[in-house]
């Protein structure tokens, strides 16, 4: 398949150019906001995989984000390994826990899955707040600067190129997954469990895999966060954050990678710009959510139904060939 130079590629190039120029023209604070946006992007991509691709309404995302943050932070404080190790560890632990939770929760459908994952997310926040010996509880946890072979990251500017790199990598992984057979299978399961199973797809295994992948993404986003943050408090690791990410994905467009990225950047910027005007922020979010659900429920970049319709047929042909 030839890679056409599409609008997407152009957008990415422009974005890359801007990101390269920024460090020379703006303050560390703006770079902090950009770093934060990159974390949001990875979180949104993770949620895209489980909700957009696999159609599973899982509300436990922030729990895995928190696990990623604490794991990376603790490993860094204890052993000071190259930060890639801490981040991967966070992603791995989240993935493992995601597997367990997925195993229990994916037996349930729709609303029950949502409620169970919601309860798990809240219970996890309680653990972060009360497991003092590990997380330091409601005092919050101090993060030491991340290391990479002698290079120490003490501020946003120094963390910047790495944060961007990781986000780019995760984006590439998402697109690759989406375009692969795995992605087609996920979307088939999203459209119809029964039909997918009729084509030989193990629906249960697919959903489980999607859950694990999204947990891993959230864990890695947590690890990214520790690169430029000096302190974490469990207050921000609750349902509110999950809702924020959900908003990004839904308004961006369920099923669309572009949508997830655009939603993450848009809402991330709004939340930072309006940090000092919380009531306006809340009313604005609410209005945006209501407006979109009322008039454009599929979001800005409505997911491609075309791809979903095509995929099962292709898969069937390949399946029968195997």
């Amino acid at each position, binding site marked *: 398949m030839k890679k056409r130079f599409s609008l997407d590629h152009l957008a990415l190039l422009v974005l890359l150019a801007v990101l390269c120029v920024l460090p020379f023209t703006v303050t560390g604070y703006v770079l902090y906001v950009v770093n934060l946006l990159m974390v949001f992007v990875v979180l949104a991509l993770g949620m895209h995989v489980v909700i957009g691709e696999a159609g599973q309404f899982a509300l436990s995302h922030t729990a895995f984000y928190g696990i990623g943050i604490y794991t990376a932070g603790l490993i860094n404080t204890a052993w000071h390994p190259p930060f890639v190790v801490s981040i991967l560890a966070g992603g791995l632990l989240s993935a493992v826990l995601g597997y367990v939770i997925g195993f229990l929760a994916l037996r349930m459908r729709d609303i029950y899955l949502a409620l169970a994952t919601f309860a798990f997310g809240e219970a996890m926040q309680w653990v972060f707040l009360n497991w003092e010996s590990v997380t330091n509880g409601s005092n919050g946890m101090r993060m*030491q600067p991340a290391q990479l072979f002698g290079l120490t990251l003490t501020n946003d500017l120094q963390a910047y190129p790495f944060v961007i790199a990781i986000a780019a990598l995760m984006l590439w992984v998402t697109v690759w997954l989406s375009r692969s057979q795995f992605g087609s299978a996920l979307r088939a399961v999203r459209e119809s469990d029964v039909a997918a199973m009729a084509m030989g797809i193990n629906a249960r295994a697919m959903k489980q895999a999607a859950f694990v992948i999204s947990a891993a993404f959230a864990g890695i986003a947590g690890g990214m966060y520790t690169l430029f943050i000096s*302190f974490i*408090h469990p207050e921000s690791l609750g349902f509110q954050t999950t809702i924020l990410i959900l908003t990004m994905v839904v308004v961006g467009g369920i099923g669309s990678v572009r949508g997830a990225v655009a939603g993450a950047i848009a809402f991330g910027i709004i939340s930072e710009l309006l940090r000092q005007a919380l009531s306006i922020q809340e009313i604005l979010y609410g209005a945006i959510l209501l407006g979109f659900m009322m008039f454009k429920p599929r979001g800005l970049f409505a997911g491609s139904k075309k791809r979903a319709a095509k995929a099962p047929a292709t898969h069937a042909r390949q399946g029968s060939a195997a």
Partner: protein
Amino acid sequence: MNTFIKTTLAAVAAATALAAAAQSEPGLTDKSIRIGMFSPLSGNSMAYGFDVVNAAKMYYDKVNKEGGIHGRKIDIVLEDDRCNANDLLAAVKKLTEQDKVFLLNGGSCSGPVVGAREYVEREKIPLVMLNASGDGALYPPSKYIYGAFSISQRAVGGSMVQFAAEHLKAKKIGYLNHDDAYGGWNLEAAEFQAKKVGATLQVQSINPNITDVTAPMLKIRAANPDVLLVTTYARPVSLLVKKAHELGWNKPIVIAVNGTADLKQLVENVGNKDAFKNVYLQEVMLDVPGGEQLKWVYDMYKQYYPDLAAKPGYPQTYMPYGIPSAMAVVNALKAAGPQPTREKFLDAMSKLNFDSKVMAGPIAFTPTDHAAQKAAIYLKFDGENKNRVPGSYASAWTYQPK
């Protein structure tokens, strides 16, 4: 022509170098010094910071009117930290990196302000707290951080136990604190003091968001202490006083300064004057709020904020706490000389010792103790009037490096 270009270039280079040298300290120009302030200005914790900032600002304004500090006027940038760690960190980042302030003077909420410690140390910027206790950032002491201008939480706990034992003659002391770091700080010194005076503590630690206090109050009643000490924030205080009355428990209740943010609302929320037959309040200023010795602060507030002063509920209870913090900053800046640097400022801070004429005790720092104020007085409160109990009750706890 060549000479002209060379001379111009040399002059420009010299000027740039000079400018760079003069402005090597961020936030400092010949005529101004920029201070970054942050505090809860909105939301349900605004009573802890809104008017405190106003008090500090009016003090800085007075200093500016008198000519500033070594010819520099104080220029303030203000952020709302909403009393939570994440917003506070974002505020501190913005002030330090975007607004490029010389020093930070902010923080009314202990838990959140402690979260800024790592950042402040990495950026090497001075942080002088407003009215936060902030024990977690003061013990072990950090070169860059000063606080507890209201009172340290350790001193709160120790002083309360001393008052209970000495004035109320209690042997068995009920103790209600929060189950977070903040609660842990005051409990640590309370336990230390209890051991010293030979009393026992019956502790119930509650979540700051608790809505039903039946369980902890029942347990307290079952333990039957002589006195109940409450070191929670304002909202649980209302619930606790109410529930104690409902359960028929009428022994003395002493409320720490943490919970006295809005006494009028407290009385209203409890809804029953009888509940206040045996209630005492801890106070960390040198007089009753609104009393004779504090008149100058309230007069100054009325002069600077006539519209606010006319509104009911203003000035807010903690308003005067902004004064000692601002005083400390100004005194240290003056001592740092006409070419201040952050290092000189911090050095001056570590030697401060003065009477703020607001707080019950002196504002005193040593190189190993950056907690400013440690004394408290007590008032008997019947729901309307406050009567001073004579004496000052000190906490015996001191920091022991591990």
